């Protein structure tokens, strides 16, 4: 972390993961220029913190999947630059955290792991190559329900799964993203967590997550293969997924390994359009 960060931690005083978040925030401020945004104080007096969040990148530390800190950021309209979730990190590193509120050996070990990762990977995204363009001028069909308009591109090279994700096949690569249905349901997307470059993905495996104040959505890959790039722009501008989910909002590029096999379980425009309409009607009456 070379830059100065404004750190918004979870304040869960009654949960171990919350206590860990607080501890990490404090450690990140020791002898450094980083500053803490106190979530409790933020609720009653926002001017100072709004200024801080406007001037510096914001690191959100959520304790658990309730994501109180992320939700507070959403409520206050703060842009999140980086994000850590303690329970997820514990799982990823196989560390069991206890149920009481003291930091013992395991908790301290986890804190060290997270701090090292935060300090080291200044920006793991700088190594990622991504083609800048994502404008294809697809032809769209639209379906309107109430004030919502759902667009779906009609293109023979775009395949869908029934989980509302699309893959645009370009030679032996595919770009993958979510449909209008997903972005409308999530509403304002605040954060994109990309998958690891080089990772091998099974068909229907997860290739990244997007998150709004309402929910987290796992991108369910329509195709199998290897992740070769991600749309770096989305890390800073996740709102592109709302604005333009099929073009500028593409999320991941995959080198295909078995597209013919994958196609068995994919659908084209006509079928997806019907399924999506039905979903919209079922959900909204």
């Amino acid at each position, binding site marked *: 972390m070379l830059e100065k960060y404004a750190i918004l931690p979870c304040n869960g005083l009654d949960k171990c993961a919350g206590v860990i978040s607080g501890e990490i925030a404090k450690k990140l401020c020791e002898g450094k220029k980083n500053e803490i945004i106190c979530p409790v104080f933020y609720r009653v007096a926002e001017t100072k913190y709004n200024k801080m969040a406007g001037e510096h990148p914001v690191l959100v530390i959520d304790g*658990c*999947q*309730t*994501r109180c800190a992320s939700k507070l950021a959403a409520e206050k309209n703060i842009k999140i630059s980086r994000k850590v979730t303690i*329970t997820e990190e514990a*799982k990823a590193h196989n560390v069991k955290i206890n149920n009481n509120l003291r930091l013992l050996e395991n908790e301290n070990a986890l804190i060290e792991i997270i701090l090292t990762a935060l300090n080291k990977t200044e920006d793991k995204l700088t190594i990622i190559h991504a083609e800048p363009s994502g404008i294809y001028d697809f032809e769209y069909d639209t379906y309107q329900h109430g004030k919502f308009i759902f667009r779906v591109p009609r293109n023979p090279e775009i395949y869908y*799964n*029934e*989980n509302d994700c699309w893959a645009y096949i370009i030679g032996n690569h595919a770009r993958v993203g979510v449909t209008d249905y997903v972005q409308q349901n999530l509403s304002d997307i605040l954060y994109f967590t990309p998958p690891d470059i080089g990772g091998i993905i*099974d*068909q*229907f*495996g997860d290739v990244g*997550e997007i998150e709004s104040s309402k*929910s*987290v*959505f*796992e991108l*369910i890959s329509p195709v199998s293969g290897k992740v070769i790039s991600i749309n770096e722009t989305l890390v800073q501008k996740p709102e592109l997924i709302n604005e333009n989910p099929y073009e500028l909002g593409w999320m991941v590029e995959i080198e295909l390994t078995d597209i013919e096999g994958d196609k*068995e*379980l994919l659908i084209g425009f006509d079928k997806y359009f019907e399924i999506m309409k039905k979903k919209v009607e079922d*959900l909204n009456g």
Partner: protein
Amino acid sequence: MSETTFMGVERNKIDWKPTIDYIKCDFCMECTNFCPHKVFEVRESEEIKLIVKNPDNCVVFCRACSKICGPDALSFPDKNATTQKIKEIRKEESNA
């Protein structure tokens, strides 16, 4: 159950649903408030206040409710095994 299908396979032939770990669950009800598909059922007066009532309503491959469960009490079947199973059923049915 309704005769819905997923990838051309009858939904009730696909085993995909959340399983609640009652040791971890604190009955906060976030999952059932969140999911629009009536998968869960709240039973206020019982000791176990939440059950998976309609597993086949769960959207195959969705795990969204587990993402909002603070205590991480929800788990799902293996995705790859489920995909293979769907392919097998499709093959059997197309040969039948």
